């Protein structure tokens, strides 16, 4: 990687931003697993692997599974955010490996929210306001 110029910085920002916010029907689905210390302590690593495994088994390819920092809901970890086309941006809590598999089957494939695990968003995103 050579050093960034201001123009490079803008370019990466625009490309990444598009990638992270795209929501059109034929594009990617994102699964974002909260992996701060508290998430990991509550089993977020198993949750992460369960997503990868279940997606593999179900032959779903257009999904990115990635980690993020603690979303702040320490009493209901692990937390997972799912962004899929035509679905509300959803935060799930207490996502064990088993719930992760349900999310793949019900939310990602079946286009339904998974009962009992939906959690409210803590705030609006200040960067898109």
């Amino acid at each position, binding site marked *: 990687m050579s050093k960034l110029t201001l123009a490079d910085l803008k370019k990466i920002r625009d490309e990444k931003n598009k990638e992270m916010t795209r929501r059109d029907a034929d594009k990617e689905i994102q699964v974002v697993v909260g992996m701060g210390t508290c998430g990991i302590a509550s089993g977020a690593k198993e949750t992460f692997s369960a997503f990868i495994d279940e997606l593999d088994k179900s032959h779903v390819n257009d999904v990115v599974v990635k980690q993020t920092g603690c979303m*702040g809901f320490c009493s209901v970890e692990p937390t997972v955010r799912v962004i899929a086309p035509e679905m509300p941006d959803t935060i799930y809590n207490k996502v064990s490996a088993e719930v992760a598999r349900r999310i793949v089957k019900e939310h990602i494939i079946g286009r339904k929210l998974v009962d009992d695990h939906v959690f409210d968003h803590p705030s609006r995103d200040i960067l898109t306001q």
Partner: protein
Amino acid sequence: MAYKNYCLVCAGTGCHANTGEEIYQELVKKARDLGVEKDVQVVKTGCFGFCEKGPIVKILPEEAFYVHVKPSDAEELIKEHIIKGRMVNRLLYKEDDKKTDTQGKIDDIKFYQKQLRIVLRNCGFINPEDIEEYIGREGYQALAKALTDMTPDQIVEEIKKSGLRGRGGAGFPTWMKWNFSKQSSSDVKYVVCNADEGDPGAYMDRSTIEGDPHSIIEAMTIAAKAIGASQGFVYIRAEYQLAVQRLEIATKQAREYGVLGKDIFGTGFDFDLEIRLGAGAFVCGEETALLASIEGERGIPKPRPPFPAVKGLWGKPTVINNVETYACVPMIILKGGEWFASIGTEKSKGTKVFALTGKIKNSGLVEVPMGTTLRDIIFAIGGGIKDGKKFKAVQTGGPSGGVLTTEKLDTPIDFDNLVAAGSMMGSGGMIVMDEEDCIVDIVRFYLDFSVDESCGKCSPCRIGGRKILNILDKIAEGKGEMDDIKKIKEISEAMKRSSLCALGQTTPNPALSLINFFYDELLAHIQDKKCPAGKCKNLLSFSIVRNTCIGCGLCAKKCPVNAITAEDCEPLPGKKKPPFVIDGKKCIKCGECIAACKFKSVVKL
């Protein structure tokens, strides 16, 4: 195919008891009866907070927040909101809950915003190990602006306009520190990030670094440009393994992308930083001790002045700020100081992150605008006290802080109000207590912590803290005298006046809030030899209520010291076996018997 609407019904325990389940059933039924089950999915969710406004129903994508919903409202919600696309005004949440009329236009309705996340803006959005994702969310744009469009004076001016004050505890205006360092002439200057975070129960700094390490790197580089430094240090405790690891990855990537290192963005500006691991002594969070520790000296405080901003690391001007302070900086540069200053109270701007723990339903990290009341944090966001118990008090400010009672619940929290209320902001730990917590016991915990962590250099702190702790121990053992209250006050006064650093100066604070705000409970311990909360073992005795005991003997089986035996008598009328008794001399007050008894026949007196 996905649904048009999603209807989220709070099924948290608070709301659940409040007919959440029934509402859920009713909504499902009405959606089916009215033929829209393909348009709306009804789902049960976790607790929204707000339990006293429950049951709560939220409908997406409009984010309509309905409160005090009854099962009989289901039909109207489905007919109006789902079928006709009109919100049901009378059920919508309204600020201060006045049911004023709004004209149903979406823009007019003030949806409740629980939190405002500036520091935690990227947590939940980006992969902290990928610099490009940080860049994708405006990362390093503030640095680009600061390096190419702004002079050091302008940077300091923007921070001044923002009103940002240090989040590490004391609330010192950040711009003033930067300005002192900027004005000190020296060939070498330093920028330091204090990530020591030693307060028991606090973990906001750890989470911020774990979730968004680049925001700290970017902010430190901006500070470096403002004061003219080219080297920085992040001082972080070694036990924060994941945070250290993410910070290492982030600095490595930042160097690869050239946002750390030589000639950043081709502007000729150089800056790099090193990570220094601390061994976890609380006093090493104090800035002069921290700097000594970076220099390789023992981590003990030095008298100030000179302040680090003028004479810090290796005698050079050094800006030292807390993690959360830095995390605000990129947003201030990007969105402007005025934007930041529009949030918060008159003298405390922006937001504050709190680590909400203790007897609270939804424990976790919350970030709210300065000026939010304790009540909103504890009851609206935190969902109130666990297991339906009563709120007793909340401890803020860690070992240097104090305990706030019910009367203070409506105080808007900011730096100055918390001090006026007898506590302090500290780093943002907030430990909630219920009616079963004994205040003497809690205060002993903090004193014990401070005594352990005193560096021992100055005698007021080393000896004074120990003396107060001894007195508190004596009171908890039932040997307290009225004179002890006076002694605590005298020692506190001496410690405040003559300790070298803020650790010693603030060690007595929890004990003083015990005297000032919980006098009755203290008197109960000293004069009546009773612990109203039932915590102080020496002031308790366990006993079995004779006429409800059925003589099953479960308690006796559980007792680890065989202090419980069957009474040597005939069974009481209506019972098959004689009741059991506890031998007070043998009892160690472990409470196993209380847990074992199915008839609540064992009681604390």
